[in-house]
């Protein structure tokens, strides 16, 4: 029996529609559950007060501070390193076996699961270098973890800068570094920023690598050698140990909201970049 292809066409279209909306539905449900359950427990006091009784009562202030410290410090370390590496790879080397090797290394490390970074960070920084569970060990581990992302996105952004812009700059008596500083990096900045935003998102959402390096102390980390918790780790412990479902949902709201914000910002920057070059 032959079925009319037009009929199949309509059927498929309907099927795809359903699946697409189903997929989006999952997203909406996930976000909705968290917000419905969490919002009643999220307020000013929750954000700005200290946890009591292991997080059963009180707020999540130290974990917010811990998250910000971790994300900012690792970005501050990883950005110059990653950007410098990207500039070196794109502007100062010729395509060779060596650069291919490096690129393969960076590419592979970008896909390596975070628990392997945790394994490395715990044994190397925490135990071998005797840092203990500390903000420092967490920051270093996170830096290595986001480095491949920053290198890759910066490299792509720098490569996308038209060659003619460089030539013009050289012809106007700019040196190589002046050209990079004044022409190449400004033109690549939206791409670089997108990479940075993605990395911040990763640092904020990461658990596996952080719990083994930064530890899980509930205190406010006041120095680099202090242990601390990020929001993601706090949420994980609250939920997994069954300490308090209300507080877990509340933490999840703050966590997801900050991630959404970071993503929206990244998306905005990216769109701006696209608008600028087309």
């Amino acid at each position, binding site marked *: 029996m032959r079925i009319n292809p037009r009929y199949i066409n309509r059927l498929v279209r309907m099927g795809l529609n359903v699946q*697409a909306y189903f997929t989006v539905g999952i997203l909406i449900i996930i976000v909705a559950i968290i917000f419905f359950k969490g919002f009643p427990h999220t307020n000013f006091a929750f954000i700005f007060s200290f946890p009591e009784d292991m997080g059963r009562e009180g707020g999540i202030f130290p974990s917010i501070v811990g998250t910000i410290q971790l994300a900012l410090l690792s970005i501050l370390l990883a950005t110059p390193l990653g950007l410098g590496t990207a500039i070196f790879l794109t502007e100062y080397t010729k395509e060779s076996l060596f650069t291919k090797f490096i690129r393969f290394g960076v590419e592979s490390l970008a896909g390596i699961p975070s628990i392997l970074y*945790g394994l490395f960070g715990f044994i190397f920084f925490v135990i071998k270098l005797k840092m203990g569970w500390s903000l420092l060990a967490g920051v270093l581990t996170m830096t290595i973890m986001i480095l491949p992302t920053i290198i890759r996105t910066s490299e792509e952004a720098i490569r996308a800068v038209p060659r003619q812009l460089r030539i013009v700059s050289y012809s106007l008596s700019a040196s190589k570094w002046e050209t990079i500083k004044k022409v190449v990096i400004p033109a690549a900045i939206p791409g670089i920023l997108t990479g940075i935003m993605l990395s911040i998102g990763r640092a904020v959402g990461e*658990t596996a690598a952080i719990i083994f390096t930064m530890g899980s102390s509930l205190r406010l980390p006041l120095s680099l050698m202090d242990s601390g918790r990020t929001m993601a780790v706090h949420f994980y412990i609250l939920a997994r140990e069954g300490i308090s479902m209300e507080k877990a949902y509340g933490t999840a709201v703050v966590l997801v909201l900050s991630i959404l914000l970071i993503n929206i910002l990244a998306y905005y920057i990216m769109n701006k970049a696209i608008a600028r070059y087309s």
Partner: protein
Amino acid sequence: MIDRTVLKEHLVKWVLVAFALSSLLFLFLIFIFILAEGLPLFLKVGLNKIIFGMKWAPTKGHFGIFPMIISSFLVTIGALIIGAPLGLSCAIYLSEYAGKRTRMLLKPAIELLAGIPSVVFGFLGVIYIVPLVRNYLGGSGFSLISTCLVLGVMILPTIISISFDALVSVPRTYREGSAAMGATKWQTIYKVIIPSAKSGILASFILGMGRAIGETMAVIMIAGNALKIPTGILDPLRTLTGNIALELAYATGDHRLGLFSTGVVLMVIIMILNYIANFGIKRKIAK
């Protein structure tokens, strides 16, 4: 004056070299460290006894991780079975059927899904999926099927965005050519567009597999972490990543080395997957 600019250029170059070298050092440090810590045990215990060993009791000298290798692949394939058709149809819908406004709305929404921390997925899995499975299918609920369901959702954004990019990059002329020959839209998609975007779609599946096999926290929350190879979809299981995360804090001596060996195996698997996705398949696209 001239000397100063020349000097500055050299200085900058060497600073950049130093930056590049130190970040490469950082990156290769982790490779080398994991290999250096993980390989000695392979020599001591024997490759076969680790990779094909059935028993994991590191404090008693058994380092077999075969069940975890199998479990890791089971959850990954299960996640793909759930995530691939959903993700691909969503990508097809977005690239071929959706209007510009729907696309503008849905694409970022799906990318946001990628940003939600995995612990949140794990938590929701424990609260909603696990009891559902326990009540309607039986068992404890901490099981292969629950893990696959959650991972299947988690890999959706990867699959959707990469196969979407592959579908969109199919030249317009292909579509027009096919339509000119009287094909319906679905025939065009099925016979022309999907075959020409095949490599990209495959890459999206493999990268999705990479994400599923590397997922840790969500998995230890849902999988139950039993050491046996699961015999049914309702059995609990332990993945390679889960093994490391569960025991890392307590491990010393050979036990710790055993976790590094687990890490080496995991790293090799991931690198093979990445290599296939990035180099094998992308090269084909380039041709």
